[in-house]
């Protein structure tokens, strides 16, 4: 199985990256962002209590959104630039 075509490129930042143990991860393709969140929370239970939004290909998802193979999905905690 070719990794690139069938996986999601998961990128995480801030406290989420610390929890996941790194900024970048391959994750098996899932149907949509709600399912991905459920899988992530199952794997990292502390994620349930952390505030974050999901961005698919650099667009923040408002509700739920399908995920295409090879998509870049980012987990973004509240911003604190400036």
């Amino acid at each position, binding site marked *: 199985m070719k990794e690139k075509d069938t996986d999601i490129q998961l990128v995480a930042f801030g406290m989420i990256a610390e929890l996941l143990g790194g900024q970048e991860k391959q994750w098996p393709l899932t149907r949509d962002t709600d399912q991905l969140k459920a899988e992530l929370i199952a794997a990292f239970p502390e994620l349930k209590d952390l505030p974050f939004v999901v961005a698919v290909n650099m667009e923040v998802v408002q509700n739920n959104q399908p995920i295409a193979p090879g998509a870049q999905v980012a987990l973004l905690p509240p*911003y604190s630039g*400036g």
Partner: protein
Amino acid sequence: MSGKKAKNIFVEGPISAGFIGESIAKHQSKTDIGAHAIFLGQVRADEQGGRTVSHIDYTAYEEMAMQKVHGIREEAFAAHPLTCMHIYHSLGTVRAGEISLFVFVSSPHRDAAFTALREIVEMIKADVPIWGKEMFDESEGTWKVNQ
């Protein structure tokens, strides 16, 4: 997103007074400008539970951040008669008292410069994926959240 390539806004480490001074000097040839407005974000040595913040470690989702800043630029130019605009943000370590954000807008008159500056800084705080972890020399840090 438009076809134009988003400009890199990131500077490794603090933004120096020299860099800011040179940016100002570069505008001497642009004689249609009548007003510059500058915002500088400086790292505060906040007290937290008896500990004092010594520095902030900044990280960013760089590609998305540059896209967002590109959008902020286009919005500000569409809304105000600006001559030019420059935005720089630090990555990595910035110590208390050092500058981590430099926003520089120029316009023929002060009204547009002041108004646009305020709007741009607020949009950067709210919409650009950058994170700062407040660090203490003696122990572990905590993640900042913009107010």
